[in-house]
């Protein structure tokens, strides 16, 4: 416990240092050093818990605003803490390189580095504190810190709007969470999470109410459909490392809350499991469809976050069903899959966002329709981004596949009590496979059209379409975090049994044994190792064949003078899929094509996608507002009428109060 408090103090001190030190370089170093030390301290505390030691508890004596703050780090909190702080550290290292152009223009990085430290501090509070009030404080701290980090480019109105959108969404989530916690406090008269188990362990209306409210709060925090649209908007506006931290780390706090409440419930109702499953499936499908058609790389990755969080929710839904049915293998598979996917998603999503930031540094845009051929200008970024893209598509032998494999194992287990449930789970498995195939499409499109081929816009220093521009320099501070994460993706994918070193206690909290997953992971490891070896051999063969090979113009039907437009565009790549899933997409087309036989003026064709759910929500809100306006107009503007209505309400209230006092 001392370690945790010390780490908190270090982080706070680092934030102060970041503000008072004179140069950006010094601020960056202060932030990185304090975060690194805090990391080491926290990891030292949590690793034993993940290896099976009992939870660390402590009491931190305070007088204001609460009396004593109970600290408790159990396996679930330890799991989240174990990688949240190192990821934030990598993000800060990346920020030093990424924000270089702004610093050179004289921008003060003090608030930014301080906020990064505060974000890390908020993790400590959220994952380690048992007191509801302090927990909410940490929750709010992380939300506000993230907001301030997002609006780094506050001079742009779009960025300000994106930040404001995020702020509103996260505060609506806070309100709902506060409502749930207030209800629990009213029932148990305690501020300690552990005491809520008394209410949550009993099936009934109270538990269902809390579950519903927590579900809404989790949906808002972690960007589930239908309240997800702030995420792509915020990601498009924020600097790359902030998007990475938000998607990969900060919003996992919502899932942590879900896990915490499930733990407190012990044995959830079956309908809760199905509800979480459905929410996850819906988010996965919706998110991946939009990831297939977006042309802004960061918005694409934002929708992909919705998809992956949906996959995690499917896993947790399966786990909850396992708990409800008393099937400990199923519960183990479900929770294992979800947790592995959370960790994996943190790795490859951060990697992809860092890669997008490098793309922005090299080409000054993240619009896929204007990019192309970056692999020859930034080979290191291309390789690392490629590893991230393959990992997020869930392809073996990388770590995205591990979570999907375990999840499919749970869904196809066939151990549900009724045939209908089994069939439903198989349907979800097929849906998951579709989501996987769509995610392959979206990532091949994103990676392929950005890095491969030739640039779709003229490059300075390139004489013709097939000549690449000048090599772009990406600083080491940006490449090193990407490299570390790529290595993690590869290692976790090829040696998935590594997770068995620290996961079992987490899953064991839910009463689920890990022999099933362990066996599956062992087999998967052999297969992955074999595949990885084969891929390495294949890469060797393919790479060696390039030495002194003949080169010519790309064949493709003999046109001798390829232009930049003669490459598939991003919109064309996903055109058929967009047509197949047109009901989910909000397509906006602007077409001007001549009907003449020999048109003279060049035609134009443009296609863009807006979030259909968000548009629908605002449509309904607008109609609701119109309804209220019409009703208000319909009510006659008579002062006597309003007076009479007010009098009636007062009489009712007085009558109710009187009846309450007499009872």
């Amino acid at each position: 416990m001392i370690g945790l408090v010390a780490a908190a103090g270090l982080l706070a001190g680092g934030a102060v240092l970041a503000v008072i030190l004179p140069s950006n370089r010094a601020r960056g170093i202060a932030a990185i050093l304090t975060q690194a030390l805090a990391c080491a301290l926290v990891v030292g505390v949590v690793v034993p818990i993940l290896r099976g030691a009992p939870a660390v508890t402590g009491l931190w004596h305070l007088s204001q605003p609460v009396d004593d703050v109970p600290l408790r780090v159990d396996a679930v909190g330890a799991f989240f803490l174990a990688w949240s702080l190192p990821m934030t550290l990598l993000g800060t290292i990346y920020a030093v390189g990424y924000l270089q152009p702004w610093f050179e223009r004289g921008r003060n990085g003090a608030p930014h580095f301080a906020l990064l430290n505060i974000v890390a501090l908020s993790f400590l509070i959220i994952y380690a504190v048992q007191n509801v009030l302090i927990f909410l404080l940490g929750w709010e701290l992380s939300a506000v810190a993230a907001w301030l980090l997002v609006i780094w480019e506050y001079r742009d109105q779009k960025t300000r709007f994106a930040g404001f959108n995020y702020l509103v969404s996260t505060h609506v989530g806070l309100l709902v969470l506060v409502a749930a916690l207030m209800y629990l406090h009213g029932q148990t008269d305690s501020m300690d999470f552990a005491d809520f188990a008394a209410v949550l362990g009993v099936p009934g209306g109270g538990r269902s109410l809390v579950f519903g409210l927590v579900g809404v709060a989790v949906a808002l925090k972690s960007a589930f459909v239908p309240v997800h649209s702030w995420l792509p908007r915020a990601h498009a506006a924020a600097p790359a490392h902030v998007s990475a931290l938000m998607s990969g780390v900060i919003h996992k706090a919502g899932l942590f809350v879900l896990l915490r409440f499930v733990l407190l419930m012990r044995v959830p109702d079956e309908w809760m499991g199905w509800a979480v499953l459905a929410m996850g499936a819906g988010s996965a499908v919706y998110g991946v469809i939009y990831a297939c058609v977006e042309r802004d790389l960061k918005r694409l990755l934002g929708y992909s976050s919705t998809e992956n969080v949906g996959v995690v929710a499917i896993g947790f839904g399966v786990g909850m069903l396992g708990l409800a049915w008393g099937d400990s293998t199923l519960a183990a598979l479900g929770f294992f899959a979800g947790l592995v996917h959370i960790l994996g998603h943190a790795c490859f999503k951060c990697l992809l966002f860092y890669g997008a930031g490098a793309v922005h540094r090299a080409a000054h845009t993240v619009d896929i329709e204007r990019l192309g051929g970056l692999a020859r200008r930034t080979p290191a970024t291309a390789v690392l981004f490629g590893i991230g893209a393959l990992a997020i598509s869930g392809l073996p032998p990388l770590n995205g596949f591990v979570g999907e494999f375990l999840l499919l194992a749970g869904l196809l287990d066939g151990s549900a009590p009724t045939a209908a449930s089994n069939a439903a789970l198989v349907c979800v498995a097929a849906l998951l496979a579709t989501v996987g195939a769509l995610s392959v499409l979206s990532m091949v499109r994103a990676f392929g059209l950005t890095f491969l081929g030739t640039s779709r816009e003229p490059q300075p220093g390139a004489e013709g379409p097939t000549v690449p521009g000048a090599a772009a320099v990406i600083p080491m501070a940006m490449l090193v975090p990407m490299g570390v994460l790529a290595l993690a993706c590869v290692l976790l994918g090829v040696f998935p049994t590594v997770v068995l070193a620290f996961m079992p206690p987490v899953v064991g909290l839910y009463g689920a044994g890990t022999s099933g997953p362990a066996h599956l992971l062992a087999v998967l490891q052999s297969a992955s190792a074999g595949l990885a070896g084969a891929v390495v051999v294949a890469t060797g063969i393919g790479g060696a064949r390039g030495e002194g090979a003949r080169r010519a113009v790309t064949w493709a039907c003999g046109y001798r003078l390829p232009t930049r437009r003669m490459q598939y565009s991003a919109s064309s790549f996903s055109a058929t899929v967009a047509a197949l899933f047109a009901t989910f997409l909000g397509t906006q087309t602007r077409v001007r094509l001549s009907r003449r036989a020999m048109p003279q003026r060049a035609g134009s064709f443009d296609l863009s996608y807006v979030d259909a759910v968000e548009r629908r929500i605002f449509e309904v809100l607008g109609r609701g507002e119109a309804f209220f306006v019409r009703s208000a107009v319909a009510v006659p503007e008579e002062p006597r009428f309003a007076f009479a209505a007010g009098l009636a309400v007062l009489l009712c209230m007085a009558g109710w109060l009187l009846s309450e006092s007499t009872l």
Partner: protein
Amino acid sequence: MRALAVDRVASWLPELGWRDWLASPEVGRPVAVFGRNAGDGRVELTAVLDHGVDGLAVVATRVAAGVPQPSLAAAAPGLAGFEREIHEQCGIAYVGHPWLKPVRAQGADSAAAMDAYPYYAVEGKPVHEVAVGPVHAGVIEPGSFRFQCHGERVLHLEIQLGYQHRGVERLLLAKAPGGLERAVPLVETVAGDSSVAHAIAFCLALEAQEPVSAEVALSRGILLELERVGIHLAGLSGMAADIAHLQAAAGYGRLRTVVINASMRLCGSRFGRGGVRPGACGYALDAEGRAGLANAIATLKHDLPAIDERFFGDLAVRRRFVGVGVLDMKRATEIGMVGLCARASGVRVDQRIGGIYEQFPLPSTTAATGDCWAREWLRMREIHESLAWLARVLEGQPGWARGPRTAFSPGRSRLCVGVAEGCRGEVVYALETDAAGDVVQVKVQDPSFRNWMGLQVAVRDNEIADFPICNKSFDLSYCGHDL
């Protein structure tokens, strides 16, 4: 098959009158419009018009060279191709022409001009371009296709031809002093799969002053219809192969062999070369030959219906062709389409009137929908109609012997036009002689010259994967366009 010979000077109109003639809709359909540098700073423009059953007519005018002319193409897109050709050959700049682009690789810097062809573009980042050619991945002729696409949908197609320009008109003109009647073998190579049609049109132009006997006309008609049947069978076989309908591809292909072997037995060439000669029958037909030909026709009549049923009755084939590559009648008339492609869109234009067709009429069918299905169905119908005509014509035919070679002179100050209906459409040959009797211009026009625009318009808003069957259904000639 029709021919016309007029006095060159008598057909001249003043410039304004000529333009009014062409622009007004009541005057006949323009069959060919071409120009010639008269040498004295003037350019002669000639228009051949079709008055239907009333025959052909010619109007001509002379304009000053180097002076820009107002273009009629904006109002009448059917004249656009003619104006482009005149601009390229005679240097007249047409003001207000929507697409004044190179037609063939003529001129000094032809290679650079071909590379710098200004393709129409649809702007927008979601749009990508697909460029096919000029080198294709099969043994087909060179042509450059530029698609503007979004996903699978073709927004626009533009075709650049002219890679096979051989200078046929120049070559024919060079052969004129030695006697144009000796140039028929060259004419047969203009478009190798319409050899008979080109040869007939050329001979008609040569013989325009003194038409040949019915026997000679009949001998030519038989070869022409045999060629039509053969090429249509090849077209059907190719279409079937493109949609992987192997039964029909093999079936039609086998029957095509029967037809071209019949042609071989008649005139010694599978493609009818040497069978048409000016002034006389190019081949002999005796009782044995007649029986052999009748046999071949009977085989076709017997075997075709089964394959037709298999191909045209297949629902999958119907799904592939119906509604694909639609060219409606209004558009087809506007562009000035001719031949089979026009008839498939409902436009009645068929040059199989006059000549031998007065004695033995050949009914001409049209289709209504103008899609790939209509074009293929019309091919099948024309095969049957040609076979029926051949059988009728051969009945009780005494036969003929090969005729002697005759020398020809088209006269002095004459303009002679010959028109024949080839398998694709009307083939036009025009000869012009000056006051001394020397040939000053030989104009060649293959129906493909008029029809390539139709393909470009028909493919719009179709799937790019359907382009090969659209292209195949039009079945246009590259070398016929390029001359």
